[in-house]
């Protein structure tokens, strides 16, 4: 029984990349200052995760010390997050319809969610 061994740099590195992507997008959109704030926020978050691994929970959040229990918790948290997002999209879509507006972009997002869910079911069912 082995833990999932991942580098402690994985999640902090992802934070930096996401921050850089947002900064680049906002710079392209003519909002360089907000892009810089986004980058700084993500760098600080990544640094906090990198340095906050003194306990098992901190290391699990960082991604390098996840045992089976934390992976199960993470999976359930992801499912709950997806459910909340989908319900929020449904609520927003209904609000737009009630106002006589189009479903954009909530219709497309709900379609993506439906396709992703069906594809995940099919894949996981096929893999056993």
């Amino acid at each position: 029984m082995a833990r999932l061994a991942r580098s402690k740099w994985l999640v902090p590195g992802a934070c930096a990349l996401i921050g850089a992507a947002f900064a680049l997008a906002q710079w392209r959109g003519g909002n360089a200052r907000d892009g810089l704030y986004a980058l700084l926020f993500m760098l600080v978050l990544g640094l906090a995760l990198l340095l906050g691994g003194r306990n098992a929970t901190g290391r699990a959040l960082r991604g390098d010390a996840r045992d089976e229990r934390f992976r199960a918790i993470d999976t359930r948290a992801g499912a709950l997050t997806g459910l909340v997002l989908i319900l929020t999209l449904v609520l927003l879509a209904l609000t737009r319809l009630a106002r006589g507006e189009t479903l954009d972009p909530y219709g497309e997002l709900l379609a993506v969610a439906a396709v992703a869910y069906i594809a995940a079911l099919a894949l996981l069912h096929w893999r056993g």
Partner: protein
Amino acid sequence: MKERRAARGLSQGELAAAVGVSRQTINSIEKGRYVPSLPLALTLARYFQTTVEEMFDGEAG
């Protein structure tokens, strides 16, 4: 499992390190809040030189 661990004078952290999980996982197993997977249950049983049935009989929730 708690009794077996205590009989060996092990802390939760020491047992966790021995079987490759976090201390919180051992704590949750002992309190009946988490049911270990079969591989982990087998690892724990082998560590205590017993069977899964003897380790977890009546503890599964």
